[in-house]
C-alpha cells in the first residue's frame, strides 16, 4: 500500500498539470501543448488509483468498507472527478464533440484541483480521525441500528472533514505537490522556451506552499 500510495502521489503530476491549464498556459496553443504532454500519461495515474483502491479492498477490507461506506460523499465527489477526467483527453478534440473542448478542459481542471485536494483531505482523516462506530456483533443482531457492522456517525458522510484545518492542510499540500511535480515534468518534457521558463518558476511558486502546508500538517 505504501508503494502504491507513493506511486500514486508521484503520478498525480498529471492532475497537477491539469489544475494549471488556466494559469501556466496563456494561449490556446500553449494549452494544447500541455494537454498533449499530459494526455500520454493520464492513464498511468488512473490505473494506479484504481489499483490503489483494489489493493486497499484486498489488503484492508475492514478499512475499505468503513471508509468508503461511511465517508460516502467525500469518495463519491472524488470519483466523479476521475470519471470526468477519463473521457476528457479522448473526447475534447474529436470531431462531433457536442459539448465542446471547453467543457472537457473544465473537467480536467476540476479533476486536477479536487482530485488532489480531496485525496489529501481523505488521507488526512486517517491521522485526524473520523466519526464512525464498528459493531462486529451487528451482523448477528447484537446492535440497535441494523446489521451494518461499520456505521458513520456524521450525516455529512465525509464532507465534515473539510471543517478540519489539518485535513485542509494536507489537501492543499497534495495539490501543491502535484503542481510542483507537474512543473518539473513540463520542464523536462516541453520543447517550448516560454512554457519551460514559466514552469521553472512554478516549481518554486508551488514547491514552497507545498512544504509550508505539509509542515503545518505534520505539526
Amino acid at each position: 500500500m505504501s508503494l502504491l500510495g507513493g506511486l500514486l502521489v508521484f503520478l498525480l503530476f498529471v492532475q497537477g498539470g491539469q489544475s494549471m491549464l488556466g494559469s501556466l498556459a496563456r494561449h490556446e496553443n500553449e494549452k494544447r501543448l500541455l494537454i498533449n504532454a499530459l494526455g500520454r500519461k493520464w492513464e498511468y495515474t488512473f490505473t494506479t488509483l484504481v489499483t490503489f483502491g483494489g489493493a486497499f479492498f484486498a489488503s484492508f477490507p475492514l478499512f475499505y468498507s468503513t471508509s468508503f461506506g461511511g465517508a460516502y460523499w467525500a469518495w463519491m465527489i472524488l470519483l466523479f472527478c476521475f470519471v470526468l477526467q477519463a473521457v476528457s483527453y479522448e473526447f475534447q478534440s474529436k470531431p462531433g464533440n457536442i459539448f465542446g473542448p471547453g467543457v472537457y478542459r473544465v473537467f480536467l481542471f476540476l479533476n486536477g484541483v479536487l482530485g488532489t485536494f480531496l485525496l489529501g483531505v481523505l488521507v488526512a482523516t486517517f491521522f485526524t480521525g473520523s466519526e464512525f462506530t464498528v459493531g462486529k456483533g451487528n451482523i448477528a443482531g447484537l446492535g440497535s441500528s441494523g446489521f451494518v457492522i461499520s456505521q458513520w456517525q456524521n450525516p455529512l458522510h465525509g464532507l465534515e472533514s473539510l471543517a478540519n484545518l489539518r485535513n485542509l492542510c494536507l489537501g492543499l499540500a497534495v495539490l501543491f505537490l502535484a503542481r510542483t511535480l507537474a512543473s518539473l515534468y513540463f520542464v523536462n518534457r516541453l520543447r517550448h522556451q516560454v512554457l519551460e521558463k514559466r514552469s521553472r518558476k512554478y516549481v518554486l511558486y508551488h514547491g514552497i506552499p507545498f512544504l509550508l502546508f505539509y509542515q503545518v500538517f505534520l505539526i
Partner: protein
Amino acid sequence: MDLLSISAVNWARGQFALTAGYHWIFVPLTIGLALIMAIMESIYVKTGDEKWKVTTRFWQKIFGINFAIGIATGIILEFQFGTNWSNYSWFVGDIFGAPLAIEGIIAFFLEATFVTVMFFGWNRVSRKAHLLSTWLVFTGATLSAFWILVANAWMQYPIGMEFNPDTVRNEMVDFWAVTLSPVAYNKFLHAVFSCWAVGASFVAGVSGWYLLKKRHVEFAIQSIKIASLVGLVGFVMLAVTGDGSAYQVAQKQPMKLAAMEGLYTGKEGTGLVAFGVLNPAKKEYNDDVNPYIAKVEIPKLLSLLGYRNINAFVPGVKDIIEGGYTLPDGTTALSFEERKVRGEKAIQALADYQMAMKDGREADAADHEAILRENYAHFGYGYLETGADLIPHVPITFYSFHLMVMIGMFFILLFVVLLYYLYKKKMNNTRWLQYVALWSIPLSFLASQLGWIVAEVGRQPWTIQDIMPVEVSASAVSAGNIITTFILFSLVFTGLLIAEATIMVKQIKKGPESLPPADHTGQ
C-alpha cells in the same frame, strides 16, 4: 431516518445495476474490437499490404473513443462495493478484493502501458513491436475480464474460504480454489466470447453501412470478413460455454435455473422450454396455476443440459423451497424452513460467541463456535422470512434468458449467411443483408446485457449464495443520499454516452483515412 430501509437497499441495487449496465455497454466493444484490430494488424504485418494498416488504424480510432468511456464507467464500480455495499465488503472483502486488486496490478497496467504504444507508436516502434503491443492490449483487456469474472463467480459459488468469528468475516484459505473455480472459468469464457460477438456485430454492422453507402467498399469487405469469422466463432462458442455455465448453475444455483426456465414443479426427465409465455396469473409458487400460458418444450433436454442425464430430476421453485428431493450427491435436499433454522442457529451462535469472548468465557465461546461452523453453510437463510424470499424475479430471469438465446441463434445464422455471401463474392450487392448487418448491432448489445441480467437477477436474494442476502449487504447510507448519486450517475453517464455516440458516428461518417470515398473496386 431508517438507514437500512428497503428503499435504501433497492436504490443501492438500482445504482449498481445502472453503473454496471453502462459499463457493460462499452467493455464488450473494447475487448471485441481489440481482438479484431489485432487480427487485422497481424494481416498487415504478414502481408505488408498498406490497406490493412488503414483498416486497422480506423478501427483503432473507434476503439480509442470507446476505451476511454469504458474506463470512466469502470472506476466507480470498484469503489462502489465500498460506498454502497460496505457490509458485504467487510464480510467477504478478504476474498472478493483479491481478484479486483490483481485485475488492477496485472490487467490494467498491461492495458495502460501498451495502449499508449498502440496509439502513439505507429511511427516510433517497429511493425512487430507495434503488433505485439496491440495483442497485449487485447490480452490486458481479456485478463481484466478474467479477474472480474473470478470475483463474480465467487459470489455465485463461494469456495476456498473460512469464516473467522473474531473478525466476523470470511477469510481466503485457498486462492486457487477461488481462481480455478469451474463457475469462474465457465463464466469467464462465456463473457469473453460475448465480447467477441459484440465487437464482431459492431464491425459487421458499420461495414454494412459503408456498403449501403457504396463508400470504402474494399475496406468494408475486408472488415466484414474478419468480423464474420470472429462473430461466428464467438456466437458458436457462446452456445458451448453457455451450456457449461448452465450446467454449473444447475449444480450450484438450482433456484436460478428454475427461474430461467419458469420451472415451479420439477420432475425426472425435465424438458427445456425453447419458447414460452409465462402466466401472469401465477402469483404464488405453491398455487396450482399453470406457470405458462404457452410453451414449446424440447423433452428431457433440461435434465440433460443441467445434469448430463436425460432422466435426472430437475427441481423447480416449489421443490427447492419444500425440499425432500434427492440431490445429485445422494443426500436429501433440506427445505427452506430447515435451512432457516440452521441459519438462525449460526447467527445466534455468532452473537453468543461475540458475547462470550467479550466476557472472557473462552470455553463457552468454543462451544458457540462449533455450532456456528456446523451450521455456517446456511448462514444467510437465518435472515430470510419465508420460502418465497428465495425466489428471484421469475419473469425477468426467464425472458432475459430466452431472448438472449434467441438473439444468439439469430447471430449464428446471420454470420453463416454473411460468410456465404462473402465467399460467393455477392456481399457487395446484397443490400438487404447490408441492412440486416447494420440494424443487428443493437441486438448484440442487448443480448450482452440480458446475460448479466440473468446472472445477477437470477442470483437474488443472495449477494453471496446461501451465505449473505442482499438486504444485509448494503452500507448504512440513507436512501436520500443514494437517490442523489443515482441521479448524478444517470445524468453523467447518459451525457457521456451521447458524447461518445456523436463522436463515434462522426468518425464513422468520416471513414478510414487515405481511401477515396467513392471506392467501387470492392471485391
